[in-house]
């Protein structure tokens, strides 16, 4: 990590460089199961984001009091209580979304991203960095969930942002975009194989962009070194 811009570095790491969905390929189970449309993805993404930011902050704060030998059970306890609180919140305020996401909200406890960031980052860094790392990792994951949900929804139903009322209230019903009415819909995209194939294309797209960036920086540094020698 560069010492000058730690916050920027953390954000870039979570959103792109080390994105949990596209690079670490963690939390694939909810990623596959929930993203049948963009709104479901957004719902679970926000829940995961909140969990990650809060647990990272708590674990980083409690770091001095947690003994090394029992740190994992302690992390799991903190994570489980946070997730339970968030589950109750969604249950209370977004009941229809809760009905759609169902078991996947409590299952955030077992999502390897959460314990992974707790162990790899929050347990070793001060709170001012740890919460941001959690939030950025969560945001990166949420973006992948929404993108995957949107792609699968578009292919399978020909819509984008259907069921927006589940998250934003009745006024958002009009947000739904519909392709032409006689669009047949590729049913495969809504099924698990469709999720794997779409995620594969997203990962490939990210790698392609990274490779092009690497090539470009390589050629510019080459240019600089050539002009420096002249």
């Amino acid at each position, binding site marked *: 990590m560069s010492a000058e811009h730690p916050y920027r570095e953390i954000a870039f790491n979570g959103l792109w460089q080390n994105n949990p969905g596209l690079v670490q390929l963690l939390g694939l189970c909810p990623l596959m199961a929930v993203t049948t449309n963009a709104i479901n993805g957004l719902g679970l993404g926000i829940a995961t984001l909140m969990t990650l930011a809060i647990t990272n902050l708590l674990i980083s704060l409690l770091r001095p009091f947690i003994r090394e030998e029992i740190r994992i059970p302690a992390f799991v306890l903190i994570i489980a209580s946070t997730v339970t609180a968030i589950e109750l919140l969604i249950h209370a305020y977004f009941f229809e979304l809760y009905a759609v996401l169902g078991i996947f909200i409590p299952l955030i406890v077992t999502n390897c991203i959460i314990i992974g960031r707790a162990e790899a980052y929050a347990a070793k860094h001060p709170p001012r960095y740890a919460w941001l790392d959690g939030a950025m990792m969560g945001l990166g994951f949420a973006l992948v969930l929404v993108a995957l949900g949107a792609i699968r929804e578009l292919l399978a139903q020909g819509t984008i942002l259907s069921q927006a009322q589940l998250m934003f209230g009745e006024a958002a019903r009009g947000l739904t975009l519909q392709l032409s009415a006689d669009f047949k819909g590729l049913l*495969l995209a809504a*099924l698990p194989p469709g999720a794997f194939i779409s995620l594969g294309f997203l990962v490939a797209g990210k790698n392609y962009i990274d490779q092009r960036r690497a090539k470009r920086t390589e050629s510019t540094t080459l240019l600089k070194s050539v002009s420096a020698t002249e």
Partner: protein
Amino acid sequence: MIFGTQTSPYLHAQLSVGQVMAQVIYALVPGTLVLLGWFGWGVVTNLLLSLSLALLLEALMLKLRQRPLALFLTDYSALVTGWLLAVALPPYSPWWLILIALVFALVIGKHLYGGLGYNPFNPAMVGYAAVLVSFPIEMTRWPNPELTSMAQLSFEQTLQQVFLGGLSYWDGLTQATALDTIKTHLRLGETVSQISQGSQFGWLAGHGWEWVSLAWLAGGLWLLYQKIISWHIPLALIGSLTGMALIFWLLNPESYSSPLFHLLSGATLLGAFFIATDPVSASTTPLGKLLYAGGIGCFTYIIRVWGSYPDAIAFAVLIMNMAVPLLDTYTQPRVYGTKGRFGS
């Protein structure tokens, strides 16, 4: 691609991939002609669309992957994939259905895995399964062979159906296949002998279908005679499917169709000689081939009888494709002059 002969006692036919694939295409001709006789112009449009789109997609992917176009287009493997899909999809399929099937077959099933020789799954069956799962209505629209021969449905009407869709009396032209009829009526509590009175049934299996199957058999036997394929895969596939069918048919001939019906219905013989024998995605050792094709036969019977799809060659082939690396590892023949397996 010519594989050199390295050690003296082995004689080698020196066939290139293109020569092998051309033989496969010749062997597909009789079955396709019979299919054409029964189902009319729809087979022609399927074939023309599928072959041209297959070549187009193959060229596009080769270009994207920066591979030599001429070398790989003339190995005809894309044409074989396109041809297999054209005869597997229902005749009069709309153009977009064929295009989507081919995209899954050639782009995702073949080139994303590294092109010919690297694909773990049979490309044609990847495409077929993708559209079968995605478009259940279009994929069950098999026409009634009595009503769609060339004399009944003109070429213009066929083109209209393929490109614009919605031929007004289209639903009147389609009919459940024999395998489908057996399945739905058995669930209604009827017996096999009652169901077989229906107009879909001929003297052995589905009316019209039995001849198509026999023509695939003829093409397949020619491939065997030309030594393009070995006997292991067709024999083991037919053997295991017949064996399963025989056991249940002997137990209760009124609720299970006869082995002969299973052999001559659906894609059994097309699958046994043309699909399961794909040299890339099939097992390569003799014992591995027997196990691989035996598995396909078993899975086909299981899905046909107890699953929710009337035919299952595509699914069975894809399932057994997954087992091929394991089969190849554990069935390697002993190397001459060594003790034990794996040449150890």
